[in-house]
């Protein structure tokens, strides 16, 4: 069986089940909690200025590691025609990162004699709110089990803290410098991306059930000075309550 044949067979099966079992569900509400994985890290390079450097600038690279984050999601939707419906979901995550810092600081007395610094800055916060608008195709597998496939645009609102400066210690003869802290500033931005995913619901009464959600959303947004392009979204793996009516 080739790939085209397989997809066609899956579509026929979904259409059959949808026609057979889900005529009575008009809408739903889902509340989920889970993880967002696949968040991309990013690096930010910037120049560091100080009255002690003279005409030279220092350099600093901040490495935001990315990774998993707890995500909360609420979705609602309605069936419009046959198994086709629309929905909207809101997800929100907040992640506190430990950012790796490295750079070179000019010597106060000499040109071209940089001093290496490195360290970390903890508690650098990334917040991401996404509104996922989607069309969905419901697939009632049985009276108590429903599967839905969905996809559509996502409107991302991002709040990201960036390292904007550093504190350092140096003492005569200034051959070394030690990073002692970092200053951060939060930048906000928004962008539009996409989302695709699937939801499986199992109802143990007429109205109430539980379910699982897999959703992948992605976009990029430019934030801050520079600017710095960061990827938003990721793979949501969540589970929660389901209401249907």
């Amino acid at each position, binding site marked *: 069986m080739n790939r085209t044949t397989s997809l066609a067979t899956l579509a026929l099966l979904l259409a059959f089940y949808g026609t057979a079992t889900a005529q009575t569900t008009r809408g739903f509400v889902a509340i989920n909690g889970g993880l967002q994985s696949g968040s991309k890290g990013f690096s930010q390079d910037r120049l560091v200025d100080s009255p002690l450097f*003279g005409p030279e600038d220092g350099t600093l690279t901040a490495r935001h590691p990315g990774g998993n984050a707890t995500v909360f999601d609420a979705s609602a939707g309605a069936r419009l025609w046959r198994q086709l419906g629309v929905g909207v979901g809101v997800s929100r995550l907040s992640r506190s990162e430990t950012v790796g810092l490295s750079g070179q600081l000019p010597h106060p*007395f000499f040109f071209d004699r940089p001093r290496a610094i490195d360290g970390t800055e903890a508690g650098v916060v990334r917040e991401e709110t996404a509104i996922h608008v989607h069309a969905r195709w419901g697939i009632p597998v049985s009276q108590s089990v429903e599967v839905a496939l969905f996809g559509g645009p996502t409107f991302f609102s991002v709040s990201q803290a960036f390292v904007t400066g550093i504190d350092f210690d140096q003492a005569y*003869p200034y051959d070394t410098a030690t990073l002692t802290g970092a200053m951060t500033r939060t930048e906000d931005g928004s962008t539009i991306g996409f989302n695709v995913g699937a939801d499986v619901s199992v109802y143990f009464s007429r109205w109430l059930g539980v379910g699982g959600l897999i959703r992948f959303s992605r976009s990029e947004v430019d934030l801050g000075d520079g600017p710095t392009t960061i990827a938003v979204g990721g793979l949501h793996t969540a589970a929660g309550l389901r209401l249907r009516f």
Partner: protein
Amino acid sequence: MRTLTTMALAVTLTVAGLVTVAGQEPASRLALNIMALSTTTDVSELRLLDARVDALVRTNALVLASRQPDVSLSGRVHETFQQYHAGVPVYGGGISRQLANTGLTVSIFGTIYQEIDLDMTPQLAQHEALALVEQRAGAGPATDDPLTLVIVPTPFDTYVFAYRATMRDFRTYFLDAHSGAIVHVENEVDEQGAIVGIGVGVNNDRKKVSASPAGGGFQTYDRLRPAEIVTLDLRHADARVDSLLDPRGTRWVASDVAWDADNDWRDPAVVGAHVYGGFTYDYLFAQQGWRGMTGRDSRILSMVNIGREGENSAFFYPPPFGPEGTGVVAFGTKADGTPIVSADVVAHEMMHGVTHFSVASRTESSLLDTHRYVRGPSSFTYDGRTFRCGSTYGGDPILCDDGRFLLFANHGGAINEAYSDIIGTAVEFSVHEPGVGPLRADYVMGEDTGQPFRSLENPLSIAAVGSYRYPDAWGHEFRFLVAYDGELIYYTSIGFVAGQQFTLRGSGYDGVHWNSTILSHAFYLAIEGGQNRSTGLTVQGVGSANRHQVERAFFRSMTHLMPARTSFRMTAAVIRQSAVDLFGAGSATHRAIDQALNAVGLRSEVQ
């Protein structure tokens, strides 16, 4: 450099027997130079000499003046004793004793003056003495401090009970407390000699300037180093320069400090003096463990654009002179306007400060001019006339002994200059990459100001007087006839080098710059090795990678061991001892330094 030195004419000579102890050098018939090294002195003799020192301490003939730990050699302690006679200090008399952490003596250097027999009741009151000195100096006293009484040894084995007065003409006068005669004068200015030539200033190189915000702009006020470094821009205002140098003049104020609106400094005099002053501090701190000029991180003041005071010169003035009475380094300009502020020159002047303060902190006097003579020709020809003993110079008798003219050399001044060139060169190597040309480290002094004026590598490559070259070995030093004006002796313009007569048209500064290359060439040989062109002796140097070892041995010899009154021979012994202390007898560094000193004719006591 010392520009004027005068001494009392001997009136009587008293002969004293010398105790024969290894390492003693007769400086005169009454002065006993003591050079007891741990390597060349028999231990029993060192202990005997040590016991004699203790005996002198018990009778208050030697009084402990300072006791300082060795900053470059843990566990070592240096005691300096000032010689006293009847409660009055003997100028230049005293010893420095180095103790190991066991308390045992490692070395002793110094000069003990013997058979002092003076009437110790001054016939002149202080105010009478001061009036006489003021009359002679044409200037008032530098400070309100009372005059001090000292016993001044003369080069002719006599002693004078004298008042000591530092005056505002930058000289210290020694006035016979009985007769009122001026018997000795020390010029307090350590000055770079004239530099004639063309140059491109500071080579248009960019440097970072450690400044401070002030008055809506920036000032050359370095607060990043443990010692504040302040560079004053006097804008060639002669009256202001004179006032700031004068210990009774005005103190410096903020408006004297070089200022720039945007911290982008365009005056190479300011940039060179300030930046290289900082680099010199850095070198002393990092390589020598020495903090600033005083060793105590005292504020360092420098002056640039100093008008007529700075015509073809740079200099160091010790306390009580300078903009706050604590000494100052100052940098002038060449005839073409090029500021004399290369790395080696700035470090040279600051090393004069180190020499002054380090010796003064131990011995209560700076490194003194030390005049030694040899018997020269019985006759010479000058201006078509033949001179013999009994002849006069400008109407003044020329000093002779036993039918032969006496030829003098100022050892202390030349040694002072040599150390400044040595550390000037060391700083240049710490700042620039080795090489040839502008902003490259080499063993030539002043090349970045347009024309080299001394070479440590090959002193003979540069003419000092006419066609006479800087000497590279003892025995080739410049010496001068001295004359007596009825009160003081002074260096004439007639000199001899290697048996050849020459005549100066201006000041020769006692030849201290010229003779300095004998010792500074030894420094070069100890590092780089090679053959001395005059003696033919070969040295196996430590190599440039180990240059700091040689630098440390030389530097420590001055800051920790050198007595105030020294000679080339004693200085060589002190340097050898320093190398032994730091690196061990027979070490590569000790061997190289010993060979180098031998190669320049300063042979060790025990071969």
